[in-house]
């Protein structure tokens, strides 16, 4: 970013993390030197509320679907337990579940470690680039 643009951002008023009914978190920053003409500003506000309404509705739809899926999986797990008991396979299923849990823990741990290392490496190289400027 050029020097003139950096100084411009210093002139702005910041209103961040304001909770409202549309979203969990939001932020706003505006240029007080160049405010939108009122007519355009009103229209942009209307557009923004429409976008937020649509995003909120989509999110609600996805949340409801996720909840229904979770309920279905609970029922499926109950059925699986009952079936395993009837077949006398409770021990085998328990062992398989424990094995799967162990596999997940190992993979998850490896993923976390790799990502943390990548982020750390990029943070270091980012700082190096900054100090070389």
């Amino acid at each position, binding site marked *: *970013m050029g020097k003139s*643009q950096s100084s*411009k*951002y210093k002139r702005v008023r*910041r209103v961040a993390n304001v909770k409202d009914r*549309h*979203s*969990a*978190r*939001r*932020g*706003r*920053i*505006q*240029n007080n030197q*160049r*405010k*939108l*003409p009122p*007519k*355009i*500003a*009103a*229209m*942009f506000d209307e*557009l*923004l509320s429409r*976008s*937020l309404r649509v*995003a*909120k509705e*989509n*999110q609600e739809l*996805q*949340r409801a*679907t*996720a909840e229904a*899926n*979770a309920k279905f*999986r609970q029922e*499926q797990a109950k059925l*699986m337990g009952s*079936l*395993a008991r009837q077949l006398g396979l409770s021990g085998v*299923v328990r062992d*398989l579940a424990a094995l*799967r849990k162990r596999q*997940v823990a190992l*993979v*998850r741990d490896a*993923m*976390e470690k790799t*990502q943390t290392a990548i*982020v750390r490496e*990029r*943070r270091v*190289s*980012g700082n190096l*680039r900054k100090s070389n400027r």
Partner: protein
Amino acid sequence: MAAATVWWASTNWFEFGTTGISYDFSTGALSGRVTGDGMDQSGSFLLTASFFLPAANFPQGGCTFRSTPGANLSGNAFVSTLYGSLFLVFETDAPRAQCQLRATQEIFAGSSLIASGTNLQTIASVSGDFQSNTGTLPVQPFPTLDFDLDRTQDLGIQLQLSFENSIVHSYQTWWGFPALCRILLPQWDIVSIA
């Protein structure tokens, strides 16, 4: 060739659902991470920026203009899965995870929409057990638009950038860092093409 710079007026950002995202406007850094296990998750991050040009500042010549906003995105998004839903030892639903980027430009003469365009891109996507994928953000996500300048009205341009993240039946991680994921929306020129 007539040209004029549109002025930045304001920027808003919002997040919905499970995002784990934080956005630093001064650096343009978007960062965050979401993890889940055995459940569906979704979340989106929406960034809108308003620009304008008063009629008094329109360039002297030119009739049709071209607008090419430069978001200058950099960095990447990462998605991964563990395993899907199981029935006994059989997998009934394979896990899927994806991060999409939707970029919209809308141009107004006064309060009338005169041009609009959206680019939807899948940044990273995986399907199946124990998969991971990293996708690089497009440098210029917004569509280029051509429009006829109405010299009687002020010009307004709104940009919307939306990161849409979803995960079904598994586990996902999504992150960014200043060196990884930067979003800055600098001012740009509208340039006459006719």
